[in-house]
């Protein structure tokens, strides 16, 4: 059984699922074995994702039929360039977060490791399943697996976590239901659930009201899942009060996978002829994107809590992506898809920093950064990398996706979008320098009560190595993706941009 028969599409999904059910049993027997099991499982699917990616790059899309049933009858795992890169992204970040989470879970969720890792793997399975599946309904199932485990994970947090988790349950389920309903309409019109098959059947039905309704329902459902303004209200609280291990895993990936689903359905199931020719949906997306960018930026500016600030930044970033799709020329769409990657990476980086600060100072307010950069030099490096990426300073990856978005906006003459991007950039600058001041200038923010200690006196006590190493890897990734953006765009993302966008 040579490399190309290796069952990567199966192992990538079912190994974590299996281990997730193993953990409770082994947990009764011996607590300590669980963590290694989790790491192994995630690494296995990371390796499989790499395998799939290479296979896709060499031989084009990979298909796998559940139970040998050919589509459209059977469930199909369909992996092309877009999924491949998403799969690598999801597994890579999950691996880092697993390594990162050990210490912070021990600190924030003592005695709850077992359920945490159980849910963690379930969530991971859901996300990776969403990425690899080629079947509309199967996607719904994985989406709900992921969401359910997310609800539970978020509810384990401090403060008002439980309540915000419930809010998330309500909205998330509504979103899923909308999606399901849309799938139902599609099935009613076409009698098929397989994405490729649907893409074949739909063009003859573009006029029909059923299809349009289905499209709208699906898009709204996904928009709720990906927290597109104004459907984002569940996000900030939920991610802010979740344990830092959870938020550094969920916040980057859940929304990005949502964005991926959005793009996948928009481009692979429906075609530009439909959403541009029949519906003119792109203008609406563009404006939603612009509002999301501005709103997210302004709200972020008014936060005093670091994690909440990051959450609103995520809302703005989703605006970037959707706006980029709304601009609807190849350059901007390229930028939007590239930005999914970049934003996942930089959000992970920043939430990890939040976790480290939380680990040391028991809080995640901006005021908790006081003198942090003098105390925790390595954390500082990671933070700076993430901040520069969000601001979009070359050569971090954030600059390059922003470049393509801006260039696309200029080519299409969408000046509003360009302006929104630039304004949001300014806002992010203000945000991060607020934090940097807190961390760097220890004299400036001293209140009289504290005794005056100078830079020399402060001893450095940094986050544990288990947290720093993933942080450094992700910080390095930020720069590497930036420097090697051309291979990524040429080799992978070009293929994901649909024909018929014009430009």
């Amino acid at each position, binding site marked *: 059984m040579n490399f190309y028969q290796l069952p990567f599409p199966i192992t990538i999904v079912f190994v974590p699922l299996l281990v997730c059910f193993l953990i*409770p049993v082994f947990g009764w027997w011996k607590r300590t074995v669980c963590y290694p099991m989790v790491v192994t499982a995630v690494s296995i699917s990371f390796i499989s994702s790499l395998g799939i990616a290479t296979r896709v790059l060499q031989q084009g899309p990979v298909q796998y039929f559940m*139970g040998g049933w050919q589509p459209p009858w059977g469930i199909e795992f369909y992996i092309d360039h877009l999924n491949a890169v998403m799969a690598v992204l999801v597994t890579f970040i999950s691996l880092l977060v697993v390594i990162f989470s050990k210490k912070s879970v021990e600190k924030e969720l003592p005695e709850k490791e077992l359920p945490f890792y159980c849910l963690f793997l379930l969530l991971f399975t859901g996300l990776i399943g969403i990425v690899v599946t080629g079947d509309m309904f199967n996607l719904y199932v994985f989406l709900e697996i992921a969401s359910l485990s997310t609800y539970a994970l978020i509810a384990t947090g401090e403060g008002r976590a439980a309540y915000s988790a419930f809010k998330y349950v309500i909205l998330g389920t509504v979103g899923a239901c909308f999606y399901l309903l849309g799938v139902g309409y599609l099935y009613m019109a076409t009698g098929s659930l397989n994405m490729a098959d649907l893409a074949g059947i739909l063009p003859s039905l573009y006029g029909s009201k059923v299809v349009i309704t289905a499209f709208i329902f699906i898009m709204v459902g996904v928009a709720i899942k990906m927290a597109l303004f104004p459907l984002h209200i569940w996000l900030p609280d939920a991610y802010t009060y979740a344990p830092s291990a959870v938020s550094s895993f969920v916040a980057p990936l859940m929304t990005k996978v949502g964005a991926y689903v959005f793009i996948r359905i928009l481009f692979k199931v429906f075609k530009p002829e439909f959403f541009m020719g029949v519906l003119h949906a792109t203008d609406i997306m563009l404006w939603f994107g612009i509002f999301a960018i501005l709103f997210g930026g302004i709200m972020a500016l008014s936060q005093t809590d670091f994690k909440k600030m990051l959450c609103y930044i995520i809302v703005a970033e989703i605006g970037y992506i959707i706006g980029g799709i709304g601009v609807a020329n190849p350059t901007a769409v390229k930028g939007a898809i590239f930005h999914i990657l970049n934003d996942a990476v930089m959000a992970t980086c920043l939430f990890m920093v939040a976790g480290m600060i939380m680990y040391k100072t028991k809080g995640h307010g901006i005021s908790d950064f006081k003198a942090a950069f003098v105390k925790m030099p390595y954390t500082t490096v990671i933070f700076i990398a993430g901040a520069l990426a969000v601001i979009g300073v070359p050569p971090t990856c954030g600059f390059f996706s922003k470049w393509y978005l801006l260039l696309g906006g200029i080519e299409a003459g969408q000046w509003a979008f360009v302006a929104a991007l630039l304004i949001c950039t300014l806002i992010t600058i203000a945000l991060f320098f607020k934090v940097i001041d807190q961390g760097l200038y220890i004299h400036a923010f001293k209140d009289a009560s504290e005794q005056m200690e100078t830079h020399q006196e402060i001893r450095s006590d940094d986050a544990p190595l288990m947290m720093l190493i993933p942080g450094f890897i992700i910080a390095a990734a930020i720069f590497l993706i930036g420097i090697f953006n051309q291979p990524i765009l040429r080799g992978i993302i070009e293929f994901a941009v649909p024909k018929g966008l014009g430009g």
Partner: protein
Amino acid sequence: MVERDESVVIRTISRILAPYIQLFALYVIMHGHISPGGGFQGGVILGAVFILLAISFGMEEVRERLAERILTTFTSLGVFIYAFIGFLCFILGASFLDYSILPFADPRSMGMLGIEIGVGITVMSVMVSIFYDLSTFE
């Protein structure tokens, strides 16, 4: 906390009913692959039995018959049966869950039956443990 119910009628009736319900549940599970029914429905019915007993006899009675530990094990066990059959097909050379490869007479039905049993066990234990968790709240 579900209290032990003192009414003789309920306890007797449920004591009498329980085996029949279980039997029916097993039938539903076993017959799932050729007629309406299957692991999920059967599992729910099977779980319902324990819930009924818990309501009429109180939690302790049921707990000492069916400890949480056992339930968790069952949950995993069911998933295992499922996955095992899946991977078995796959080791035998067909794709995941492709029963036709299995070495039985009428392999598809047999494979499906195995799957149904696995699902049944899991669903039953999950139902009951959800009930436990929600009802043992002080």
